[in-house]
């Protein structure tokens, strides 16, 4: 009986915060300037928590191995894969991808795989970083 949370709350005061400060330990005055400084090597990014093995991130595509069988297009739930008639290859639009990795499973030549990259925020859905071909 009583106030059971009082103990945990006091104990909490002496604990370190759980949050991983990403991308910087303290909020930069200007994020764009901060990212520029990172690109120039003047500042350092506080890394995100590592993803576990088997994480489903940005798609990696080996064009050489692809035989153009279109099976990935048949199973893709979001219609994120387009067939390029001329080259007989495929094109992935990551803005539409739901990262289910079903295309990896169905691919007979294993030319598709998932990387651990997950920082894919972009203002333009058709940006170069969001199209894999």
């Amino acid at each position, binding site marked *: 009986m009583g106030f*059971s*949370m009082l103990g*945990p709350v006091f104990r909490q005061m002496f604990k370190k915060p759980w949050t991983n400060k990403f991308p910087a330990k303290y909020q930069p005055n200007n994020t764009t300037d901060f990212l520029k400084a990172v690109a120039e090597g003047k500042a350092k990014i506080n890394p995100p928590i590592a993803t576990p093995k088997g994480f*489903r991130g940005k798609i990696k595509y080996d064009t050489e191995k692809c035989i153009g069988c279109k099976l990935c297009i048949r199973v893709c*739930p979001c219609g994120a894969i387009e067939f390029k008639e001329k080259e007989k290859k495929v094109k992935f639009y990551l803005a539409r991808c739901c*990262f289910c990795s*079903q295309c990896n499973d169905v691919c007979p030549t294993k030319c598709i795989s998932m990387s651990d990259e997950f920082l894919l925020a972009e203002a333009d859905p058709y940006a170069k970083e969001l199209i894999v071909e």
Partner: protein
Amino acid sequence: MSSETTQTTYQLPIGPIHPALKEPVMFKFEIDGERIVDVDVELGHVHRAIEWTGMRRNPIQIIYLAERICGICSFVHPMAFCRAVENAVDIEVPERADYIRVVHGELERICSHLLWAGVAAHEIGFDTVLYLTWEMREKALDLTEYLTGNRVTKAILTIGGVRRDITSEHIPKISETINYFNKNFIKLKRAFLEDKTVKMRSQGVGILTYDDALKLCAVGPTTRASGVKKDVRADQPYAAYSDLGIDYTTPDLLTGEVNGDVYDRIVTRLLEVKQSLEIIQKAIDQMPAGDLVSEPKIPKLLNYIKKTPGEGVGRDEAPRGEVIHYVKFDGENEHPYTWKVRASTYANILPWIPMLKGEQIADIPIVAASTDPCMSCTNRVGVVNNKTNQKMMLDKETLHKLSIEKTRRLMR
């Protein structure tokens, strides 16, 4: 002038958009002062055409669509769908896959119940418990990410089995998480069941009697908290549940009595977290070796489904209650002829009416939340005085404030 006094009530509409409601639902309350005299529920504000979309896709694509019906039940919906397809076209699931399905299903139940516990604490203005439960939930999500590759959308199921194995490499992390939960369960139990604040706001509030729960077909923890022994895992065991010995979790196991109030719903869910931990441990220990999926070649599977006519039902015990998927194939097309989904919250909407009658406005958030409808959206309540047609708005903050104020009032 007439000497008789005419008593009138106010109408208080809540919804269609409200954070305590899973889907946009419209409540119309008849209010006499602070007391709720009558409730009416209106449905049908959100129609996402998910079934229509599904009827134009092949079953493999629908798994990922079903996963997105609900953000929290992202395992049970595809599970019910896969079981409906397996039932329709007679696909046998390997035994090992059945055990892995149980592990993921129970892991999801732990995540969902802990999330609910936090939200319920938030609704009564007890935010420290929200942080405690969500800190614990983080461990369950980490394990989910480790086992499936993502925190929420698990993408673990496929028709006729599962897509990822649980290997000996995974076992240490699973045991570590189970130990963590067993150790911290005491904390959770103390925070919820022994605390004065929680007891004040939940005991004797939002009562759903045994008869009402039966009559209104409530499902899941909502009905079990009223003493109705109803659980798909025990009534019609699916996957590997028949091997694992599931018992109904009613609140009298812990408290010795069934009241059917909000407190009992908290007790039921906490007991279920404990039960889920035991089931996961048992499933890991008893897991047989074998195949993961009955037909690994997806094009072959799709062609088989295309040629086979049939209809099937998949029933599943979601964290909130029973989920039903119905699928029919005509034997000519790859996509299903019909796909029907009945989510568990739908069955838990009518019980709101007896629960809310006679309660106060400040109890609406916790009573509505006690059936575990999904918490999202923004909160806005409009109060209209019918007599003068004067309108005033009660937004999310005000309603939440009212709830907190009631907690403070009771503590004085």
